[in-house]
């Protein structure tokens, strides 16, 4: 099973917006913690003025200048960033995003969200830069029954250790329809409850074996939780309700398009209403590299 960590190259897009400085500081800090190189991508024409400004910002962060590469690219923002990531074999792309978007933006798609949908590397969406800077305590990771899950959970564990997190909760979303979601009367309720228990036991066994593997490489304190609910939505709501600082999820199986936003499912639920910082783990990138 390929895993995308250790992250060797981290990239972030930099524009001269009010958040640029916070974004750069945060990316530099993460790069330092991961002991990785940092690629700064600016979409726009290269001028000495901009370069000087960027270099000044980089010096302020106190990161080793040798490890920073500044790239200027012109064209469509999303494509430029993705191209640059490919060329530089970036493992982790960091982007800043607002928690909620208005409806128009949701359907046309903001840059950050579109990166999530299309990126071939792992991506970290920062909604709450100050929290990461203070402390990332609670990590929620998706434990759905999928081939990618093992790599995702191990990545979350690795990243959590690097950030100095305290807890990690593996949330397994079970489709309620799998058990016949009916409880019209007492007999049906009893039957559904029994089926749910059985299914939950099976899922818990699977997660437990995952946990055992984690503990072998020295993990954070791991909890797990089986929740019956819609995939994608449930984990987001759980993270909000439990004040998680970082949510880690599998990359989507196919490229997400406009129809996925109209008929919202899985990752799109989280993207439409980010509960906290979001990390999407993409394992294919490593194979390509």
């Amino acid at each position, binding site marked *: 099973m390929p895993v995308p960590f250790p992250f060797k190259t981290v990239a972030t897009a930099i524009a001269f917006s009010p958040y640029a400085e916070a974004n750069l500081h945060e990316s530099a800090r993460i790069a330092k913690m991961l002991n990785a190189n940092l690629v700064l991508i600016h979409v726009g024409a290269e001028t000495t003025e901009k370069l000087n400004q960027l270099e000044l910002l980089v010096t302020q962060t106190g990161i080793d200048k040798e490890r920073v590469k500044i790239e200027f690219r012109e064209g469509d923002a999303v494509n430029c960033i993705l191209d640059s990531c490919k060329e530089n074999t970036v493992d982790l792309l960091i982007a800043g995003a607002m928690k909620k978007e208005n409806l128009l933006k949701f359907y046309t798609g903001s840059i950050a969200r579109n990166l999530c949908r299309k990126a071939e590397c792992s991506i970290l969406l920062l909604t709450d830069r100050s929290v990461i800077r203070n402390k990332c305590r609670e990590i929620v990771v998706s434990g759905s029954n999928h081939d990618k899950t093992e790599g995702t959970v191990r990545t979350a564990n690795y990243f959590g250790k690097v950030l100095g997190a305290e807890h990690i909760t593996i949330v397994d979303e079970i489709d309620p329809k799998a058990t016949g979601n009916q409880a019209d009367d007492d007999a049906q*309720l009893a039957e559904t409850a029994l089926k749910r228990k059985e299914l939950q036991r099976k899922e818990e066994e699977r997660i437990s074996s995952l946990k055992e593997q984690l503990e072998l490489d020295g993990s954070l304190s791991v909890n797990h*939780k089986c929740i019956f609910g819609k995939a994608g939505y449930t984990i987001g709501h*759980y993270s909000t309700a439990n004040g998680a600082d970082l949510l880690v999820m599998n990359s989507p199986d196919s490229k997400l398009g406009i129809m996925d936003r109209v008929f919202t499912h899985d990752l799109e639920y989280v993207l439409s209403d980010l509960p906290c910082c979001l990390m999407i783990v993409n394992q294919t990138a490593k194979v390509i590299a």
Partner: protein
Amino acid sequence: MKLFSNGLKGWKQSWKGDLRASISVAFIAIPLGLGIGLASGVPPLAAVIPCVVGGLFVSWISGGNITVHSTPKMLIGVTAAAVVTLGGTNLLLGYQLFLAAVVIAGGIQLLLGLFRLGVIGDLIPASVIKSLLSAVGVIIIVKQIPDLVGSPIHPSNIIDLIKSLPELIQSVNPPVLLIGSISLAIMFLHPRFEFPIIKAVPSAVWVVLLSIAYSYTLGFSDGKQLTILDYNFAVGSSYLIDLPSNIVDAIATPNFSQWKTGVFWNIVVAVAVISSIEGVLSAKAIDRLDPLKRKSNLNKELRVVGLGTIFSGFIGGLPIIPGIVPSSVGVSHNGKGQLMDVFQALLVLALVVLLSNQLQHIPLAALAGILVHTGYKLFNLKEILNIYRIGWDQIIIFSSTLIITLMYDLIVGISIGILVTLTIHIIKLRSVIKLFTILFRPNVVAYQEYDEYFKFHVSVKGYCNFLNYPRLKNAMDVIPSDASINLDLSLAEFIDHTVMEHLAEYEENHIRRGGNFEVIGIDKHFSTGNHPLAMRFKKEGKLPLPEERILTSRQQKMQALAQKLEWGFDLSVRRYITTFEKFHFFKFKTVDSVYNKLIGTVDTNAITIQDVDFHEGELQFKSERQTTVAILGLNEPIPLFTIEKENFLDRVAAFAGYDDIDFQNFKKFSNTFRLKGDDEKAVRAFFKPDLLQFLEEELQYKLESAGNSILIIGKERPMSEAEVQNLIHFCTRMLYVILR
């Protein structure tokens, strides 16, 4: 807990009680059915047929447990209007055409049941339903007043009635009015009589018995002229009920010839929707009557009732619904099973066949009296007076639905009521889009808590109104009925009155069935009215003073708890609190406000328990949280320490010489908890064996000492009242142990 098995075995256990109960049920079903039939403008037996069909055919496969089937009252207005619209002056043709509509409506109900749409009753705002019931009450009363007073003038609606009032008063027939008034008086006064014989016989049966005697005495059937004090009054068989002499004559067949017209389909929809609504309402009410606390299957009930309605329509009967009146009579006479319905059907059939000659003598005015009483009950004056407390929004919804229903019909009334409700929600939400997104997005998560197996946490996010309540209901329905549910609404920005009412009902049902249910997290929401079930929403700004604000059920429970313990309870919201800064837990958090403060003392040491709103981060990165904390204020200084549940990493770290303080004699405590303190010697001195033993057994919180006070904190969410009780218990015991 189930005393009765299903199927044959259950019937064996319950048949004796059911048989006895069914006698009372049958006696009440006949006058009620005859009255409804008359008021609907169809042959009176058409409304008795559903009782028989329901009992003989439907009850075997019913989704209910103590359901007695009868005829929908809410359809009276619809039926009367439909017969006239479809048949014009030919009432028999109108009746047959209407039967065709009944058959198709039954088919629609069957489909609704098959697609598990039994929730249809939940999808209509509570105030609209209340308003519909009141409107039906008014319609019934208006229709019955002429019969009650013996006048030949028949106004079609309330405005007509007021216009024709002078003529109506002139055409009053005193002997008829007398029996009408006696009947009304019996209906209204019967519940107040304590005399056993009077009480044992239902009021409607008294009315029938007395009125038959009255009509025999005055000779109604022969058409006599009476002279009282020089006035002449005619009494005749036109003031008596008209029943066919042979029961077979009561059977009519539907006429489907109008199926291509739009009018016909309007009636089909009206019959299907109204009888589904009334059916679901009464099925839910019947569940609450069940002494054995069983839950009936609404979808199954909708299916079988649809099937029964098809059958009933084919032989000339009105639709079938689970009837709340006969069911409650049955339950109060010790009926415990579905056989009650079968027996009452047989009895009704036998009585109608055998006694049809006697039943012929019931004066219309007597039945009108029963119906006026029913109409008054449906109108429910008490509930209407209550609505203004729930808020101006509900008054608007209620009155607009009532007026439109009385002016047009029930379906228009429902539609306008829903539209008005949605408009009010849009005004409150300040967005149309939000209202439509909630239709398609999940907003509920339900899961078991970590530690306690039978404790479920249900969290609702965003907007919660009558349209997406079924989602919340489905999530709660699959939770075992003896589990404890904490419904957390702190993430919900808007909860409408319908949901609040459903939740109150859900709470009642869940607790009755042996579970525990608490709503948490709405103590700081604003409300539109001075009522516990008023709409709740989040808003920037200051909450009104505690005296001017209605308490949530959680606050009421906490208040009662404070009174019981003789503690203080402070409801006011306080801002800019600095008490928490000394605690490490709040170092990176800013406390916004504290509220719901419980204050008690143990030997001059204070215990305060309060809800705390705090946030981390600033501006757009702000994440707001709520929790409930306890602080023990101590008179004597104690060392600084923190205690938390230990996790895997710490266990490794402790080997490497970190500052986890372990006690050799308390292995379990040392293994489960991480105790840290800057002065190890003082901490060891403070943690005496009895304190350690107490903590080893009872501790499920994080503790932190700040020198002269101890912070006790649970999960990062508000606690339910039951959890607050546990916390109080823990705090008092811990103080006793420390002071000992």
